[in-house]
């Protein structure tokens, strides 16, 4: 599992040199740490932008009636919020963490394909520049939901949909290149003695995530290309009037979309599997079963896509197959949760910020898992489908799941990145305010969903008013708290108590064998792992 550290092989490789001077350092860099940093800042910027859109949504939903935006713009906000959070905030954050940490964890000098690494990052600002610019175009930006179901996104779409399609293509290329890089790095650049089954779980979950990305991003590219053909070249893939099939869109989209949700959570599973053992001062329970469970989840993710489509009228045998397959996912996911709890059991626990976020991750992600299990029951899903119950479900797996996983990782490795300890007191404030805000925002959504409130509506019946107001207050609290996170990170970069090479006494792994901050070049000579 975690590697035995061989001290001595650290900062100094054959040609020691630091980063280039001036802004071109960031444009031309092939250094995994620089690129990781850029990914993380990009992700945080997108997180604030997507979050601002959520604030607009929650302000409109604060009371019944239309107050600050019209339905047309509201739909653009829900769509862009989803797209930016999925493709701009969560995915780049994990690629950033992978860039920074995978070479350090496996004793590699850099990513395997550094120039491609630079290109895959710089595609992202271009893609998101295009996507966000659609908001200022005549007819407005994408307004058909982040799932962009045809024919609303084809025949009935605003003109800017073509820019949206191109932006998705660019993001897809970026993700595929990032994934190839992770696979090449993990399979080829491991230090001597670092066998696959000794890798930290973060490397394992990212390896599997990378295969998911390579498998499904081309499918996403395919579906948007079919849209492009329908819109501009007279085909009728999704146009019923031309003999096409609107349901085909959903099958292709969700064949991408379901593995995509695991792409957004598996790396967090990996990070939490490093953090909990560190602060429990006890090895991860069931390392091998964790690896197999991740593989099982990845496999199952390919055969459950139609559970997003229980109401489209697929035949009853199809409903049954997808219901059973979906229920099965609870088994490997359960194994992971039980392993994390067993890792904590009879450990010697402390609750620094990374551990607080990691423990909240386990609890709240499990709540999201429970609602996921409820949603898998097809007859019950007829009542839940496309209501706020679903919104509650996927925000519980994405916010305290993916995003708390990212916060936990950030606090855990921030001393390694900056060479300073972060302000623990402020970080705990960040945790508790996020925890309270997030639960206030998303827990009442279960209630309004079960009581009958559909998702993606800008206005609602009075019976939903009180819980929506609570939700909005919680969302404002959660949103504002993230500015505190920005402050904590900047404060940590600028100074603070110097961090030792291994700031956490219970930590294991090669990343803690290099000084803090990690030198610009590490493991020029591979470490020996015993």
């Amino acid at each position: 599992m975690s590697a035995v550290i061989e001290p001595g092989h650290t900062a100094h490789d054959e040609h020691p040199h630091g980063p280039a001077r001036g802004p071109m350092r960031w444009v031309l860099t092939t250094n995994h740490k620089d690129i990781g940093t850029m990914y993380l800042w990009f992700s945080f910027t997108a997180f604030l932008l997507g979050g601002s859109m959520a604030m607009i949504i929650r302000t409109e939903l604060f009371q019944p009636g239309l107050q600050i935006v019209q339905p047309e713009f509201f739909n653009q906000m829900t769509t862009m919020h989803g797209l930016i959070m999925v493709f701009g905030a969560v995915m780049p954050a994990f690629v950033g963490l992978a860039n920074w940490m995978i070479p350090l964890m496996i004793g590699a000098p850099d990513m395997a394909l550094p120039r491609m690494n630079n290109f895959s990052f710089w595609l992202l600002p271009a893609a998101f520049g295009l996507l966000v610019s659609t908001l200022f175009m005549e007819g407005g930006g994408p307004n058909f939901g982040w799932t962009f179901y045809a024919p609303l996104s084809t025949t009935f779409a605003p003109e800017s949909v073509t820019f949206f399609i191109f932006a998705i293509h660019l993001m897809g290329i970026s993700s595929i290149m990032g994934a190839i890089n992770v696979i090449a790095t993990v399979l080829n650049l491991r230090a001597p003695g670092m066998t696959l089954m000794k890798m930290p779980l973060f490397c394992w979950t990212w390896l599997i995530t990378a295969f998911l990305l390579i498998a499904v991003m081309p499918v996403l590219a395919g579906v948007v290309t079919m849209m492009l053909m329908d819109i501009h070249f007279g085909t009728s893939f999704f146009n019923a009037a031309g003999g096409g099939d609107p349901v085909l869109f959903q099958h292709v989209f969700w064949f991408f979309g379901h593995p995509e949700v695991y792409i957004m959570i598996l790396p967090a599973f990996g990070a939490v599997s490093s953090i909990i053992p560190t602060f429990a001062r006890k090895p991860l329970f069931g390392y091998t079963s964790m690896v197999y469970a991740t593989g099982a989840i990845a496999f199952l993710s390919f055969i459950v896509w139609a559970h997003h489509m229980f109401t489209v009228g697929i035949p009853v045998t199809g409903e049954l197959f997808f219901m059973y397959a979906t229920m099965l996912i609870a088994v490997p996911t359960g194994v992971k949760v039980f392993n994390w709890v067993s890792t904590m059991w009879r450990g010697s626990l402390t609750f620094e910020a990374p551990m607080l976020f990691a423990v909240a991750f386990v609890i709240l992600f499990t709540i999201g898992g429970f609602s996921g299990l409820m949603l898998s029951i097809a007859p019950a899903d007829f009542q839940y489908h496309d209501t706020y119950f679903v919104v509650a479900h996927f925000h519980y797996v994405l916010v305290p799941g993916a995003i708390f996983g990212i916060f936990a990782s950030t606090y855990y490795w921030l001393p390694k990145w900056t060479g300073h300890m972060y302000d623990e007191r402020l970080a705990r404030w960040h945790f508790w305010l996020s925890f309270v805000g997030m639960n206030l925002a998303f827990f009442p959504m279960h209630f309004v969903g079960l009581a009958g409130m559909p998702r993606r509506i800008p206005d609602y019946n009075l019976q939903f008013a009180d819980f929506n107001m609570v939700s909005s207050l919680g969302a404002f609290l959660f949103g504002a708290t993230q500015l505190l996170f920005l402050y904590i990170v900047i404060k940590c970069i600028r100074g603070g108590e110097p961090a030792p090479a291994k700031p956490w006494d219970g930590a294991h792994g090669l990343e803690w064998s290099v000084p803090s901050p990690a030198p610009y070049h590490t493991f020029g000579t591979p470490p020996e792992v015993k």
Partner: protein
Amino acid sequence: MMRHPRLWMGLLSCSALSQAQAAWDVNMRPGVTEVSRSVFDLHMTIFWICVAIGVLVFGAMFWSMFAHRRSRRPQPAHFHENTRVEVLWTVIPLLILIAMAVPATRTLLHIYDPSEPDLDIQVTGYQWKWHYKYLGEDVEFFSNLATDRNAIGNQAPKNDHYLLEVDEPLVIPAGAKVRFLVTAADVIHSWWVPELAVKKDAIPGFINETWTRVAEPGLYRGQCTELCGKDHGFMPVVVEVKAPADYAAWLAGKKAAAAEATAQAGKAWTLEELVAQGERVYRTACVACHQPTGEGLPPAFPALKGSKIATGPKEGHMNIVIDGKPGTAMAAFGKQLSDVDLAAVITYERNAFGNALGDSVTPQDIHAFRQARETGQGMQPAQPQ
């Protein structure tokens, strides 16, 4: 409008209020059909299973967080493997899932059996209203949102059925098995009535089947649940279940009204009558996009005020209203409205919002336009872009 006092009262006495009003509803309602009750039972069963598992797992976590803190246990244990428990916590959840799948399968098979219906109703989703057609009965109508637009804009008070009220509900007989054939005319919609546990996507080019049987008369409300564009949140579903005798009387009344409307088409309409009727039609069929002022929401929804078409020749105006504009949200209203309503609304548009042409389009004009087109002599329908 300010609801803060109620919010705080509610937080203090949550349960008491939830009895009095639906505002603090935290759960699904069991509904009024056999299917909805079995769905509710499934929902509660899986919920309690999740609660039980949650109590065990979170209980263990919280105990560990309390008892296994470093201040109480400076020396951690070192175990990190146990094949027996790993197998147990793989197999036991699997068994629970199998136990859960059995009733779920039974309910699903029951829902998927729309055979031997007493009545067939075709449900068609339009942007943004529902159309109901009683197959074999020659009765059909649109069901539009009836909520006052001023209430949505906060200039008028909101009632209890705000956004859940329609001008004409779907009426079905109590006790009968009613089969719904669900489809759509433009984008995908989804027809949902929570109390009946019926939700089915309305997809252009597809006809989905679903059904219900409601024992007791009553009024049941739901909404479109698939994002279908701008006014997705403003196309409610209302189902009125009537006792069989009342239903028969209602159906006879609808048929008589249809015959009356046909007769009306032949009479000579004055400009004033057409404008008055046209304003009513505009309020239900056109106002969502072209707005009460006729100024639209350009560029997606163009203005009618001073527009080339609405102030141009009658033929062009009839053409776009009857055939729509493919590739845009402008639907072909020739399929949706009667000759009288088409004539009225076109006349209204030519004489409202400052468009003062003073001319009128009569039901006979519409009839002639349709006839000419069928024989291939009138204007061609607009071509796709």
